Structure formats: structure tokens, C-alpha cells
């Protein structure tokens, strides 16, 4: 799952206009970022890649890109 695909999936989940998220946004200021959005993102990542997102690791993230980095191969 590349950066662009990740951002577009996230936009769909939080109901943000296409192309409006670039990754630098803080999760705190991301409209509609809640527990349901977290679950949706976990599901999308599991469906479209080999990576798995853990709620505990997501809880330590500040920005959108912090989450994206969690699904990158080590």
C-alpha cells in the first residue's frame, strides 16, 4: 500500500474531500478521526496489504504519516 493509496483510503474513511490530506495533518485535528475510523483503517490496511495496524501502536501516533510509517516494511 503506497502513500497515495493510504491517504485516499483515509480520506474516504474520515469523509474528507479527495486530495485534501497530505499526511502532515495531526490526528487530533483530523475531522471524524475516532474509534470507528481507526477500525475502518485497520480493516482497509489488512485487506489491501500484508501489514497489520495495532490500536496500541496507533495510539502513539501524532500525525497521519506516523500511522503510514507503521505499515512500512522494517
Amino acid at each position: 500500500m503506497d502513500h497515495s493509496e493510504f491517504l485516499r483510503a483515509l480520506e474516504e474513511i474520515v469523509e474528507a474531500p479527495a486530495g485534501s490530506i497530505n499526511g502532515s495533518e495531526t490526528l487530533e485535528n483530523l475531522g471524524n478521526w475516532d474509534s470507528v475510523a481507526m477500525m475502518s483503517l485497520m480493516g482497509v490496511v489488512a485487506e489491501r496489504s500484508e501489514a497489520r495496524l495495532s490500536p496500541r501502536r496507533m495510539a502513539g501516533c501524532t500525525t497521519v504519516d506516523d500511522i503510514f510509517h507503521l505499515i512500512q516494511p522494517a
Partner: protein
Amino acid sequence: MNARIRAIRYALPAKVLTTEELAAEFPKWSVAKIDEKTGIRQRHVAAPDECASDLGVAAASALFESGVCGPRSIDYLLFCTQSPDYFLPTTACLLQDRLGLPTSAGALDFNLGCSGYVYGLGLAEGLLATGQASSLLLITADTYSKFIHPRDRSVRTIFGDAAAATWLTAASDEEPSLGPFVYGTDGRGGPNLIVPTGGMRNPRTAETSVETTDQSGNVRSADNIFMNGPEVFEFTMDAVPGMIRELMKKASLSWEDLDLVIFHQANLYMLKSLRQSLRIPEEKFYISLSRCGNTVSSTIPIALYEAVCEGRVREGSRILIAGFGVGYSLGATIVRWRA
């Protein structure tokens, strides 16, 4: 000897909470979004003076009124709830009296949530197969709404109150009607779906009733139910596929051998994710959420009853059922329908 399910009925409280009403209360969530994520159009909510036992009586009465069996024929009652009328006495004892079951009947409560129906069938199989009982009533009933803070949309959109009554008898079927069974438990997940107070560990006080707002804007106190949705989702996606594969192996079955798959109706998003993960054929995967939501231990018997009414379960149908959630606790089995 072994156990056979003979009939199921269920009961819902009269009060209905629609998705439209919830969307009006939580403007950030549209009807479409609640629908898409939960698959639930309405939930039934118990009245202030309506308890799990009352719903259980309604479900069992529907069973008796259908004429398939009568209260005097029951010699064992299993009652599954997490919202009992009292700490003591045992709600099943009170139900013996209210339902008019013989005083010679055995009766017990067991405290499980979403896995409760499978565990109840497992207990019933043991009691009926060993001759300890010959005609058993399994009632699942919960009123989670009494634990829910009205401004906590994370749980209010999902859970509904209900009860289901399942009548089982001893049988001598060559191919057992229930089993094999697979179980699982991981108590590390306890804090992720919990009512923290009200038991002996943390009695309710003025302090425990203080409300807080979480990052998603949901309001609750320690006296209310708390669900860490993402953690429960992760557990489910990790644990359930393995349990299902183990059951299929134990039963020497493949998807082709099954007529229907009924999972605990947690929410639509979780069900879809599990179906995709396990590659279960869509036409064999039963979803029955829209009318009453996640009714905890009653979702599986309600879905099974509905599937029978719709003709999707017929005489001889082989159905895989699986429950998973609070505890964490999980269980799965195969039902051969011979009602």
C-alpha cells in the same frame, strides 16, 4: 445420547431506538454512516423496570405458547446473562418459579456475553448426553442498555436488548446434532469491554459516577459500559479465523459441506471483515442485524430462528455458529438442524 435443538423463540422490548433518532442526537454521524458501519437500522431498549428475566420470560412464553413444549416438561434451565436481576439469588431460580417449571428441575445462571450461546449449547450437550437432563431450556437475555451512557455513541449505536429461548432434548442421533465444539479464552482483553464498577472490586460511589469525555467525544463514567472498539476488532480478527479453521479441521468439513454460517452479529463491519478473511462464500454467510442490532448472547439464536423462518435453514441443514467478544471469550460449533 446427545442433544438436539428442537425450537427457538425470541423476545424484544417494545421500545425502539432508530438510527434516525441516533443521527439526530449525534450530528457528526449521518444515518448513512451508521448504516454502513453497523448495518443496524433499529435497536430495542428495555423499559426502566424491564430486566433480563422479564425478557427471558417473554421468550420462553413464546416458546410454550407455540405448543412445541410446555413448562412442566423442562427438567433443566440454563440462563445466560451479564445483567442479572440481583447478585443473589440466581435469576434462573426466580425464572423456575415465574415460568412454572417443576421444582425438580435444575437451574443455573452463567455469565458470558457474545460467546454465551455456544457455551450454553456445549453445557446442554453435556447435561443431555450424560442423562442429567432430558428436556432443557437455554435462555440468553441481556439489557446492556442499562449500562450505556446516552451520550456514548460507540456503544449506543450497536447494542440492543433481547432474549432468546432454545429448547433442547436428549436424542440418539447417529450423527450428533451439536458439535464438535471449539473454545477460547483470553482474559487479557477484560479491560477492553467492561463495566468497571458495581461489583465487589469497585463498588459504585459518587466518584465513580463522574462523567468524562473521550477523544472521540463519547461521554461515560466508570459506572457505564466501556468498549475499546479497535482493540476488540483486533482480537476478533486475530482469534476468530484460527478458531474457525480449527473447528473445520476437527469436524472434517469444508465450506461446501456447510449450508449456512452464523457468526455472532457484532456489527456489519466486523462481520464483513471476518467473511473476507476466512473467504466464506457470501451466499452462505448470514447477516441479521438491521432489526435489533447486537443483542450479545442472543444474536445467534435470533439469527438461527430467522434463517429457519426464511427457509435458509431446513431439516438436515448443517450450520456453523461462532460467538466471540467480551472476556475475551470465544466458542464455535456445528449445528445439524433436526428440529
